[in-house]
């Protein structure tokens, strides 16, 4: 039987570049990714920062993808999958950049990922960083990893997350690092769509029925304790702000506040007054100190690649 006659055979025969499960090799093909760190910028800091922004998107994307086959309507199913895909796209380029700057080396396992695989290609940096890193090496803010609860809570989460990341990416377009600037430029319109989508649902549910209002407010309340952390600057971020590479997270508070002030009153929702979840000894997600929610998310994301490290399809 000709391979073209059988969709599975055709996919399997799609060769070298057809690594759908394990990425397409952005670190090899995206020309900007291979640029050195800009003059005067510490390579390790830049790699760490790329990892932070990558992990926010990667873990958030994985969380959103949990909605696949569970969304309330087909349209929302498709929307959530597309939003997850946008975030994954941002994560992939940033992981490749972090890997090019050296962040992946320590996670390559001898005999598994360091040497060429069967088809003569080494595991890509982005795969190594996504699939072979344990939770304490993830640098995402804890907001990215929390359980998204019901649809209302997911929309509250998305409104805050996209408003924050949109503010970040808007400013990052002027970064001294060409990859960060390029990723940010592409991310801005994508995040603007996400924020409008989330804001639309927060309005509709908040100012909807008695029940939808209660659940929308509860969703916002559940997300709220994780919001404060996203405005705190890690030492790496502070150093890179000085170097013109990074965005000061403190500056993003005004963006998120402005969006919430616009949406919440119309949605008849109250801005929560719940205490923030404290950092542990001053350390949070950016330091690899995570909530217990991250482990299971990574287990789902990583188990297949770890069980079949050489698999391609």
């Amino acid at each position, binding site marked *: 039987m000709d391979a073209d006659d059988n969709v599975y055979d055709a996919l399997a025969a799609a060769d070298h*570049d*057809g690594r759908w499960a394990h990425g397409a090799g952005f670190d090899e093909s995206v020309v900007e990714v291979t640029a050195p760190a800009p003059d005067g910028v510490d390579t390790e800091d830049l790699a760490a920062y790329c990892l932070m922004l990558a992990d926010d998107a990667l873990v958030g994307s994985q969380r959103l993808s949990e909605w696949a086959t569970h969304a309330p309507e087909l349209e929302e199913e498709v929307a959530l999958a597309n939003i997850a895909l*946008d*975030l994954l796209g941002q994560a992939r380029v940033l992981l490749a950049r972090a890997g090019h700057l050296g962040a992946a080396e320590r996670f390559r396992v001898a005999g598994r990922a360091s040497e060429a695989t069967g088809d003569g290609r080494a595991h890509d940096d982005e795969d190594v960083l996504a699939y072979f890193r344990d939770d304490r090496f993830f640098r995402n803010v804890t907001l990215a990893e929390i359980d998204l609860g019901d649809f209302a809570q997911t929309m509250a989460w998305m409104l805050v997350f996209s408003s924050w990341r949109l503010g970040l990416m808007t400013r990052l377009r002027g970064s001294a690092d*060409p990859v960060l600037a390029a990723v940010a430029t592409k991310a801005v319109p994508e995040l603007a769509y996400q924020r409008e989508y989330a804001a639309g649902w927060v309005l509709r549910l908040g100012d909807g029925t008695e029940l939808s209002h209660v659940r929308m407010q509860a969703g916002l309340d559940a997300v709220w304790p994780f919001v404060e952390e996203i405005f705190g600057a890690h030492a790496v971020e502070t150093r890179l702000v000085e170097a013109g590479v990074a965005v000061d997270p403190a500056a993003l508070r005004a963006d998120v506040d402005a969006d919430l002030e616009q949406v919440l009153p119309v949605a008849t929702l109250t801005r929560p007054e719940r205490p923030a979840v404290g950092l542990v000894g001053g350390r949070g997600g950016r330091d690899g100190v995570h909530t217990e929610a991250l482990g299971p998310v990574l287990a789902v994301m990583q188990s297949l690649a770890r069980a079949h490290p050489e698999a391609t399809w």
Partner: protein
Amino acid sequence: MVSTLTDRSPWDVAAEVTDPEMPMLTLADLGVLRSVSHDDGRVVATITPTYAGCPALDAMRADLAEKLADFGEVEVRVSLTPPWTTDLISDEGRRKLAEAGVAPPEHIGPRTTGPVALTLAPPEKRVECPRCGSADTAVLSRFGPTACTALVRCRVCREPFEHMKDI
């Protein structure tokens, strides 16, 4: 004269490769084919992604590698700068989209560098129905069957259609 493969440049061949999700468009129509260089039995094609997460990118790379193989060793590079926008879709591409029942994107012009305002009201400007031309349309979902389209319904002919989002 009958054109044979050897008469054609690598650019001509690359430009005819179609988008896997929007097969009515070639990579050239879509504006994602940036350059094709050819020397010494080696071809380097550079494309730019529509969306960073676009799953079609892998297929585009594989298709280009296959179609250009006659010219020698092929490398397909991806470049993020300058970023792709729907403004790069050619007039020919817009015509083909409309013909296939997909409302083409609006021209958005140069991007602002400032903050992006959140708009809660539905947009004033309506997408024209590619079937009957009516502007009496409503967005059903901002996210359609592919990452780059939204789902819209025409109130006049009552048909749903896809709109390629301006981005």
